[in-house]
């Protein structure tokens, strides 16, 4: 079953800025979907329209088969949203924020209290439940928004950069939590600037740029398109000059570090043989950048050239 179907969605703001130029998107139930794009690409506009925070100019959206125009309330019940900006009252406690959200979704107070405890415990906020939301750290505020978005146990959770500004440990625990609820059947749509996050979590991906979807495919398929990767090699003994490495594009970063571009058709064993023949011994190697990041930048670069 389709969790989200977007057809020819367009949005032009009153200041004539066209944020979406007719995007189409199909997300299946149970998916862990990444929507990536640079700042101002239209991600937040698209999410805002899906959730009822932004009026669309034209196009249709169906959430689990419910049209957001004709079955608005049923469609809204299927969605939980974690926005990019903090959007809860700074003068309320964590518990009351979550409970009130339950009330807005028509959930009886007793049930809402049970769920609030469940999610605040899972997200490590139960001890903070009586504290004012303004007193929480940045990471805690983001997790509070996740707990709030789950109070009505939606079929689809949309997270707009949920780990922005969150430290590594909290980010990893948030990932584990999201993987857990996805495995329990919740469809997840994620926008993020951390491409490592998208690569680690998501099964499918769409890349949006200048209001258009420039790629919509599976993560595996997208990564298989990567025809070259850049690796950093740390050397055991330093070298003064870099010898010719036939068939490879290489440069010396410093006396103990070499950067080598390896194409898909290259044999990595051959590279090691060449290095050995020059008396160069490698102690470790790593990707220069995240694989998805290289693809992402290539796609955006190509999109700019076609304009």
């Amino acid at each position: 079953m389709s969790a989200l179907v977007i057809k020819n969605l367009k949005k032009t703001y009153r200041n004539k800025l066209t944020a979406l130029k007719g995007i189409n998107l199909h997300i299946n139930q149970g998916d862990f979907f990444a929507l990536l794009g640079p700042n101002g690409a239209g991600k937040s506009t698209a999410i805002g329209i899906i959730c009822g925070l932004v009026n669309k100019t034209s196009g249709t959206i169906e959430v689990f088969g419910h049209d957001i125009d004709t079955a608005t309330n049923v469609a809204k019940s299927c969605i939980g949203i974690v926005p990019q900006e903090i959007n809860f009252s700074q003068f309320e406690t964590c518990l009351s924020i979550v409970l009130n959200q339950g009330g807005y979704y028509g959930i009886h107070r007793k049930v809402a209290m049970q769920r609030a405890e469940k999610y605040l415990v899972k997200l490590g906020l139960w001890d903070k439940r009586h504290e004012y939301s303004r007193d929480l750290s940045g990471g805690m505020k983001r997790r509070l928004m996740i707990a709030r978005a789950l109070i009505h146990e939606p079929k689809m959770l949309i997270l707009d950069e949920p780990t922005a500004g969150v430290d590594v440990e909290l980010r990893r625990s948030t990932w584990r939590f999201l993987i857990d609820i996805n495995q329990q059947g919740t469809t997840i749509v994620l926008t993020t600037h951390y491409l490592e996050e998208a690569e680690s979590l998501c099964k499918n991906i769409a890349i949006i740029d200048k209001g258009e979807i420039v790629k919509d495919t599976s993560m595996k398929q997208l990564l298989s398109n990567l025809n070259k990767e850049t690796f950093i090699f740390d050397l055991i003994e330093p070298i003064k000059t870099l010898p010719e490495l036939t068939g490879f594009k290489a440069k010396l970063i410093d006396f103990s570090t070499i950067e080598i571009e390896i194409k898909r058709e290259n044999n990595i064993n051959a590279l090691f043989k060449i290095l050995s023949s020059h008396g160069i011994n490698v102690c470790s190697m790593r990707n220069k950048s995240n694989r998805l990041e290289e693809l992402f930048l290539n796609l955006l670069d190509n999109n700019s050239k076609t304009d």
Partner: protein
Amino acid sequence: MYKNSLIPFITIVIKEVCRFMRIWVQTILPPAISMALYFVIFGSLIGPRIGTMNGFDYIDYIAPGIIMMSIINNAYGNVVSSFFGAKFQRHIEEMLVAPIPNFVILAGYVTGGVVRGFLVGAVVAIVALFFTDLKLHSLSIMIVVVFMTSIVFSLAGLINAIFAEKFDDISIIPTFVLTPLIYLGGVFYSINLLPAFWQTVSAFNPILYVVNAFRYGMLGESDINITHAFIMLLVFSIVLFGISLQLLNKGVGIKS
């Protein structure tokens, strides 16, 4: 209906009441103090020199208007500040993403304003008892007038908040429109004292009907026909409700 309307409605009302009770020093106490000053200055000090107004001691004559003045200001102020605050902090989005019909959001905020109107009205009435014996001509008329007035001015506050983009915008209307209308709405005088032309102009002031209807409930005396006053309140309620709902449905001021 219960799930989609009543629970969200109760949630909004409880949240609104908790909000103004949490800051009672800013919401409940100031009207009690400022209205006490009105009773001291206009009632006890200047009032005896004025004598009677339409056959009543001056302090008794102005008491209904002073109570209504606090109800109007607080019903309006509650909704305008709460709704604009929700817009400003963006937690209005909590309601916009939820499956709540717009009329429920509207009813929730207005009920919050009505509750504060009644509460402040009761506090000011208690303060008035320290200065004079309040008369009760018709308790039911008084309650209905307070209820309808609170609705009208809560709705007006909501419309102000919908259009407001900065904090200045929520103080301009109360300062430059509401306050002059209150002072010229027969709180401190009978419009029979005015020349014919200004009596006609006063007839366009909605607060004149509110104050006189409430005065009728307390004293059994009014410058205008009580039925006429109720019709005006009803018309204002319906028109402002329709405008507010239409604005929410279109997402004016709250959606891009």
